[in-house]
């Protein structure tokens, strides 16, 4: 026992000394530089700076403009892909909103109108009933009714068309890549770093090359969406296939199944519930991309949000933002229902008896089509019946602003002076050389020498690209935000797990926060807290809160009941039960939540640049507005490296905890 205690103290001593040394160096780096007359201590010397951005920029230029495979250029290939994607997209757009026509301009002749709003809602209800029951049907029907009643129909259908194209590509593509990685080991090894980059490099960083390669317009936006939304599907597929019980595989082999049969008849069906979790992630991430996609030509709801907020129409922004949320809810619940759905016996009888839902839907579609020819209101939801919150939100905002600004301002000043600025000073002051060394040291200590070396190399890349200062601002902003998010999120999650009723409300709020485009609350936040780090921090906390809450709730709920029973038998009070039994056992889950919180905080970086922070996000954003592909990708890689280091360290922590707990 005493050995254990000594081990702890020695480890604590190590961290204390490391922190103290860093703090001293950070505090006095300027004095040291003056005393030694060595400016390189605080600034990476310009002449050794590696011009990665130029190299990457030139490479992108070559790839986009000259690269060719003898018969066709790289760009011809990407343009061909764009052309293929465009076909289903245009079809869905015609089907959902534009109608089918021949000719263009004055000579256009409509062959068929689009599906009427009633028909679309009818289909959604039928799918809901088919997937689970009437309550789901009512829920998704209400969600789509909201779109019609609040006048969001047209934009929503455009967004829906792109979601309906992006999600299958992301899900099926992810599934196939996942299967390939499961079968071929080196593919998995190759994919792992690529997936890390796909998930952590901010989308803004590669928008410009995508635009050039895939042409301007909705298809480029779709491609960017798929790149962003596919990785979880690949990861989930690999995990799900590896989780298929050995006996099942054995049984398949004994039956003499070929490799193809093994994959499609044994592996995939038995992994389906887990695979649907991945598909679900693809849907949510696709909807997360709606705003960014609209910036490069996807149009739809994202465009409405941006345009409303540019004229400070907060109500309009919230209505369009909520339209994205309700669409996410409808799609999410339906896809979850499909994943839990049991196989049912085929019904027998006539076509009508066998397919009551298909028939009913067909009747609605054809019926509204015919009626729509006579009564326009059946075809298009009448504009006079749309409602709007009008100036309600703006007036509420004004009331808060006028009455509570001083209180909020005092609070903000307190937090700024007490927390944000000292932390910023600490991070920004760290000399880059020590920063590289210390990152390597931390990674080595927690996750082994391999990660130590990689982490140090990654930090060196950032310093050598001349981005050290901005990277430190990034660390400070994300660090503070993650700290606050975990501080708020963990108790909320515990509360949600202990009290199921409160839990339902809390988790619903978290769902909304995650799918509501952050731009919607960014503008009110700026009105109350002005442009600056504080507003950025609030936006990051709001966005990154959800995983901290979810994983905490999940972790507490998953504590084995026998252990709780044992705790109760030992005479634990509920308080002791929470602190001594539940929390320690939930620690690995809490750490995974922390990991996700960090990832989300980093992915919000580019958005925080919109309120004027001076971090890597701003660098990416500047590169985008100047269409400088090289600068954008280098800054994007820097963000990705920070994310990867954080991810590996937290995962290692979680694994150690699990081992210690014997889980």
């Amino acid at each position: 026992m005493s050995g254990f205690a000594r081990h702890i103290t020695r480890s604590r001593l190590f961290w204390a000394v490391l922190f103290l040394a860093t703090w001293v160096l950070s505090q006095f780096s300027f004095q040291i530089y003056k005393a030694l007359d060595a400016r390189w201590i605080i600034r990476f010397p310009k002449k050794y700076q590696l011009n990665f951005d130029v190299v990457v920029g030139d490479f992108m230029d070559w790839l986009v403009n000259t690269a060719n495979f003898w018969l066709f250029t790289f760009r011809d290939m990407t343009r061909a892909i764009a052309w293929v994607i465009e076909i289903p997209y245009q079809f869905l757009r015609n089907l959902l909103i534009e109608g089918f026509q021949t000719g263009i301009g004055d000579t256009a002749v409509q062959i068929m109108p689009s599906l009427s709003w009633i028909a679309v809602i009818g289909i959604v209800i039928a799918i809901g009933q088919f997937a689970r029951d009437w309550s789901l049907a009512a829920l998704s029907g209400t969600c789509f009714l909201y779109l019609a009643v609040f006048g969001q129909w047209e934009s929503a259908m455009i967004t829906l068309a792109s979601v309906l194209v992006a999600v299958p590509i992301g899900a099926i593509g992810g599934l196939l890549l996942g299967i390939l990685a499961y079968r071929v080991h080196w593919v998995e090894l190759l994919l792992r770093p690529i997936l890390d980059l796909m998930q952590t490099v901010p989308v803004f960083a590669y928008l410009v090359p995508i635009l050039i390669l895939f042409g301007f317009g909705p298809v480029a936006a779709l491609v960017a969406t798929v790149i962003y939304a596919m990785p979880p599907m690949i990861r989930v597929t690999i995990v799900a296939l590896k989780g298929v019980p050995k006996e099942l595989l054995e049984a398949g082999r004994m039956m003499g199944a070929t490799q193809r049969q093994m994959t499609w008849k044994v592996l995939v069906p038995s992994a389906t519930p887990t695979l649907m979790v991945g598909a679900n992630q693809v849907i949510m991430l696709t909807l997360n991309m709606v705003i960014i996609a609209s910036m490069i030509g996807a149009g739809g709801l994202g465009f409405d949000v941006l345009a409303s907020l540019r004229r400070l129409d907060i109500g309009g922004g919230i209505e369009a933002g909520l339209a994205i949320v309700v669409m996410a809810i409808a799609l999410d619940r339906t896809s979850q229902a499909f994943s839990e759905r049991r196989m049912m016996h085929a019904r027998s009888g006539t076509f009508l008896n066998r397919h009551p839902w298909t028939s009913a839907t067909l009747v609605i579609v054809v019926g509204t089509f015919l009626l729509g020819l006579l009564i326009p209101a059946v075809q298009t939801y009448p504009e006079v019946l749309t409602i709007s919150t009008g100036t309600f939100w703006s007036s509420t905002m004004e009331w808060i602003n006028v009455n509570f600004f001083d209180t909020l301002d005092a609070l903000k000043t307190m937090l700024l002076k007490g927390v944000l600025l000292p932390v910023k000073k600490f991070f920004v002051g760290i000399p880059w050389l020590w920063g590289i060394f210390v990152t390597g040291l931390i990674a080595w200590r927690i996750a082994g020498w391999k990660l130590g070396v990689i982490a140090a190399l990654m930090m060196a890349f950032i310093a050598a690209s001349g981005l050290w200062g901005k990277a430190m601002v990034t660390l400070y902003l994300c660090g503070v935000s993650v700290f606050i998010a975990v501080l708020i999120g963990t108790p909320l999650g515990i509360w949600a797990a202990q009290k199921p009723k409160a839990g339902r409300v809390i988790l619903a709020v978290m769902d909304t926060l995650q799918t509501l485009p952050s731009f919607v609350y960014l503008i009110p936040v700026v009105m109350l807290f002005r442009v600056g780090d504080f507003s950025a921090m609030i936006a990051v906390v709001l966005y990154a809160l959800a995983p901290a809450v979810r994983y905490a709730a999940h972790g507490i709920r998953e504590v084995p009941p026998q252990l709780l029973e044992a705790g109760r038998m030992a005479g634990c009070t509920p308080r002791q039960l929470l602190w001594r039994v539940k929390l320690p056992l939930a620690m690995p889950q809490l750490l995974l939540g922390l990991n996700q919180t960090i990832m989300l905080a980093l992915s919000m970086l580019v958005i925080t640049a919109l309120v004027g922070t001076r971090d890597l996000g701003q660098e990416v954003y500047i590169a985008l507005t100047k269409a400088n592909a090289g600068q954008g990708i280098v800054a994007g890689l820097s963000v990705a490296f920070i994310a990867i280091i954080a991810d590996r360290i937290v995962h290692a922590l979680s694994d150690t905890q699990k081992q210690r707990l014997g889980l």
Partner: protein
Amino acid sequence: MKHLSVLTAAFLAATPLMAKDSSDPIKLTLHDWSGQLITTTLMGEVLKKAGNNVEYLQADYIAQFAGLKTGDLHLAMEIWETTGREALDEAVGTGNVINMGETGMIAIEEWWYPAYMEERCPGLPDWKALNDCAQEFATAETAPLGRYLGAPVTWGGFDDERVEALGMDFEVVHAGTDAALFAELEAAYQRKDPIVLWVYAPHWALTKYEGSFVEFPPYSVECYNDPSVGMNVDAAYDCGKPTGPIWKAAWSGLPDQWPNAAKTIGNFNISNDDMSAMVADVDLNGKSVDDVVAAWMADNEATWQSWIAQ
């Protein structure tokens, strides 16, 4: 590369009058501010009247140049001298984009304050008076200096240099986006709090809020380039900001494919006042862009008819 656009113009003049336009749609870009939506819709509607087919596509203001170069996009209606010149010059330099001339609108950018500040700072709009009451504009983060909310760093504008050159007691804080800039103005205006920030015209803010631009020493090219010019002999930028036209830019293939439309586009011309009135109708009175454009076209038929190439 200027001679290139001249060449295109000469080529344009030489095309026979009877040249037929392609029936393919001309793709116009839409951005996320109402003024640009109005300008573009107006252009599109006029082109339709002239018998062309048009298609509207959403695109980012700067990123759209990539599309204009390749011919994925054909026409961008608002490239501001003040914020888009660099990108426009670069694109024209490649030979794949041509400048289709001015829209008639003039971009103004300058420091701006709400009218209620005149009581607190006697002597406004003179910049010296503003500087004398810099204290009024101070916040916890900037004290004792006043806080000036500048435009996103990507817009340029040399405000940091201006503050330095004129020895002003202000700290420049850069907003990240246009929306954040005006969100702060809206909030301060509601509370009647001191604020001085970057405002540009044509913009709805000038219709919604009362206030004025600060008067700096007048801009000249020399003032920006030559430190010895102006009141501070050791520094450039010791004067106000330049104003400049808003340009139209097009894919270089446009005049070949749609010769008549190219002339119509070249003739398009609208004043700041007309534009501001339309923008206010959309952003403040809640009318739709299509309605506002239709109303303007009904009232000014002679004007837009004269744009259409005969």
